């Protein structure tokens, strides 16, 4: 098989630092090669170097790249440019920022077509090819009018416009929800098969690689440490680093210990509702409501973890903040140990946030950050001991946040929350900004703290695979409401609600089993205009007539397992 792309000994440096070091691999036409690695390992820079689109600070030190028999680094810029439109195309991680905000989708696609053959009007055809419904209208719209998934499809359409022989996809689904990710991955695979394109897929997700790739290359600290056939790789990775990656996958970690004794109800949330008014018109009258949280009832027992799972925008964060009274709920009751929590009770409930970089004030020392809560609550505490408890050194208290990595910052944030000795910790996607190996450490820390201090967790996440490892109970949220809840086994292994089933099926697994998964079409609707009846009905594969008529009532399957679906009523 003659190679379409042949990379030999590629090195890229930024400043004096080598960030890509001696990378060599080849790619045949019609083949998918996944470049796997954690953040900062140099996979994106490798891809940009192939396109000769490196940022100005980065420099190709040595190596050569042959594409279709031509030496890329020797081509003049004009030749390279025509290759970029036609021979090789690229799509990026953030569909929200990667499209020009002030040009219509159609214009942006036409631009590529014009470069190649001067003909216009194929944009609609391409949009249809990537599965955008109502393509005619969408072509005349601007990026902000499209959902994230649709934007990424439009990006793909744009890349296809030049009929490339190689498509480089840099984390194409990382910013998308699992159900949308499944759709986009499917689309890519399908297009590739039909057009005989080569696909260079860059990802940090082993599951995505397992599902898509023919061959896998693992990058670590700028070096390609292992290249192998996908099947062989997932049967048994050879390099120690690859093995470590596997070991930190949540599904390969042990399950949480069951808490003894009967579960005592601790936090009770009843019919929690948060509506944000939409104001329009001359007098800024309220013309509608964003029903971010629409009647959520939950219970968390002492020493246990309840995970709230759901896709982006379903209201998870809002629910968490409303429980903490950071957002005033529109309606509903929150009580802790039977006491109402409409007054701020900062000692008992604390929160750990998602973004490790935004959650620590850069102008304060670690010690001051941790002491803040204690001062506000008038309690004494040992900062050093707290730091040690979360696995840091006591003498780090005098340092500033910028000196710490994402994982360390998240530990600091946990220490800050623990400083006031809370009994419930609300964790809002505390690991989603972290690499898998760091994620495993943070989860282990959380579990360890739970065992030692008897903490209860409300764990908000969109990542189902961590749920199994951390949670005792699970609540699945869709468009502001809980559609199914129960203990981990009931929900993850005995899911009854079609949405939960779709969510579980969409998660790419490393055994590659989700190949023929249940695809739910479309995007989640806007919480400002929820569909009539069951909110899930426009996407539900098992929709019935009465689903459109009324919202299904609660169905109780066991003492703990409840759901809302007409299939079971």
């Amino acid at each position, binding site marked *: 098989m003659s190679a379409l792309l042949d990379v030999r000994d590629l090195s890229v440096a930024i400043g004096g630092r080598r960030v890509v070091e001696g990378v060599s691999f080849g790619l045949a036409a019609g083949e998918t090669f996944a470049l796997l690695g954690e953040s900062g390992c140099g996979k994106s820079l490798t891809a940009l170097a192939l396109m000769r689109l490196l940022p100005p600070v980065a420099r190709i030190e040595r190596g050569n790249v042959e594409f279709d028999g031509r030496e890329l680094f020797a081509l003049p810029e004009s030749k390279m440019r025509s290759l970029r439109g036609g021979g090789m195309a*690229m799509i990026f991680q953030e569909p929200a*920022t990667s499209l020009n905000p002030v040009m219509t989708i159609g214009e942006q696609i036409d631009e590529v077509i014009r470069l190649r053959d001067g003909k216009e009007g194929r944009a609609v055809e391409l949009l249809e090819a990537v599965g955008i419904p109502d393509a005619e209208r969408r072509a005349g719209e*601007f990026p902000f009018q499209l959902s994230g998934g649709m934007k990424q499809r439009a990006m793909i359409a*744009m890349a296809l416009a030049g009929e490339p022989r190689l498509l480089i996809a840099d984390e194409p689904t990382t910013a998308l929800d699992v159900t949308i990710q499944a759709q986009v991955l499917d689309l890519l695979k399908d297009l590739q098969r039909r057009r005989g394109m080569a696909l260079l897929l860059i990802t940090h997700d082993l599951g995505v690689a397992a599902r898509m790739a023919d061959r896998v290359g693992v990058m670590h600290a700028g070096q390609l440490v292992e290249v192998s056939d996908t099947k062989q790789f997932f049967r048994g990775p050879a390099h120690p680093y690859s093995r470590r990656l596997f070991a930190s996958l949540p599904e390969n970690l042990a399950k949480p210990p069951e808490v003894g004794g009967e579960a005592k109800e601790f936090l009770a949330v009843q019919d929690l509702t948060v509506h944000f008014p939409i104001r329009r018109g001359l007098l800024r009258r309220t013309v509608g409501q964003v029903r971010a949280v629409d009647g959520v009832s939950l219970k968390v027992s002492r020493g246990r973890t309840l995970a709230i799972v759901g896709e982006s925008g379903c209201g998870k964060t809002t629910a968490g903040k409303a429980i903490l009274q950071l957002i005033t709920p529109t309606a509903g009751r929150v009580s802790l140990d039977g006491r109402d929590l409409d007054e701020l009770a900062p000692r008992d409930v604390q929160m750990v946030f998602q973004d490790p970089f935004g959650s620590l004030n850069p102008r304060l020392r670690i010690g001051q950050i941790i002491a803040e809560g204690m001062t506000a609550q008038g309690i004494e505490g040992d900062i050093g001991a707290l730091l040690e408890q979360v696995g840091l050194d006591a003498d780090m208290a005098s340092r500033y946040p910028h000196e710490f990595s994402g994982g360390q910052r998240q530990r600091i944030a946990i220490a800050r929350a623990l400083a006031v000795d809370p009994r419930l910790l609300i964790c809002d996607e505390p690991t989603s900004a972290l690499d898998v190996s760091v994620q495993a450490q943070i989860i282990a820390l959380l579990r360890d703290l739970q065992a030692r201090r008897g903490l209860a967790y409300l764990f908000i996440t969109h990542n189902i695979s961590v749920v199994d490892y951390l949670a005792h109970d699970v609540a699945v949220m869709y468009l502001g409401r809980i559609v199914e809840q129960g203990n981990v086994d009931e929900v993850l292994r005995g899911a009854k609600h079609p949405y939960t089933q779709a969510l579980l099926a969409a998660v790419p697994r490393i055994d590659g089993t989700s190949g023929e998964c249940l695809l739910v079409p479309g995007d989640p609707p806007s919480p400002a205009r929820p569909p009539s009846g069951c909110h899930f009905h426009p996407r539900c594969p098992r929709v019935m007539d009465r689903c459109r008529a009324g919202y299904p009532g609660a169905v109780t399957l066991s003492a703990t397992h409840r759901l809302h679906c007409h299939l079971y009523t």
Partner: protein
Amino acid sequence: MLAYIVRRLLYAIPILIGVNLITFALFFVVNSPDDMARMQLGVKRVTPEAIEKWKVERGYDLPLFWNGAAAGLGKATQTIFYGKSVRMFAFDFGRADDGRDIGREIVTRMGPSLAVAVPVFVLGLFATVSFALLLVYFRASYLDTAGVVLCVAMMSISGLFYIIGGQWLVSKVWHLVPISGYAEGLTSARFLILPVIIGVVGGIGSSTRWYRTIFLEEIGKDYVRTARAKGLSERLVLFRHVLKNAMIPILTGVVVVIPTLFMGSLLIESFFGIPGLGSYTIDAINAQDFAVVRSMVFIGSLLYIVGLLLTDISYTLVDPRIRFQ
């Protein structure tokens, strides 16, 4: 969209009222009309009669807000506040100290002001945007560095120097154009060339630098990388993608000044003897003609508010995110 514009219009009303109150307070509450009269007539040796006469001539002899002596509606209207402030909303500015009608004066002086200000604005915008694009095209090269240093040097030079130096060099040494003056019609070109050039040159430094920063910020964005990945040439990337997006921040700074072009430029007009509103203002300031200064404040604010409104409207034209909201 329409509702949006109407709302902005309604918002302008309290602002104009606020401006009016501030000027009124500044002119009549901080100082009494007697103080003003004494200052105008010379502080020493003024008789109370002279002060009284000065006040009567200008209508400053009335009470400030409430005329208890007048009858009916006159209680409110025969006051300084009504006569000097409220009437402005009807564009009734009264008379200047030399007895001329301020409103008429403003209308006749707008032409010459615009004759200088519009070319300066248009040519200046074109020159600075082009210059900035040039620097950005050659970014991180010596040309760029030299251009930036040149800009900083140019903006460090006093505007007065450009005018005085320009007049001296072009008119006195080279005798190319008259040193100052103004004429109606086409012959005015002879008089206008130099002030326009000086106006443009004086603004190049700071504007170019500002636009360059905006362009560079846009160039760092993800969609530009996408455009490059599509195989577009650097020229197309710059003109089609970057320029269009950069227009949005540029508009905020630019559109708002368009209406205020009517006000003319104080310095250029007074140095070149152009009978526009700028020199009118300066003369009024030097002659301490309070009525004229007050009228100009009102007009200036009104034009600024119109500018804000135009800015909002132009946003909806260039930014689809606002247009479709």
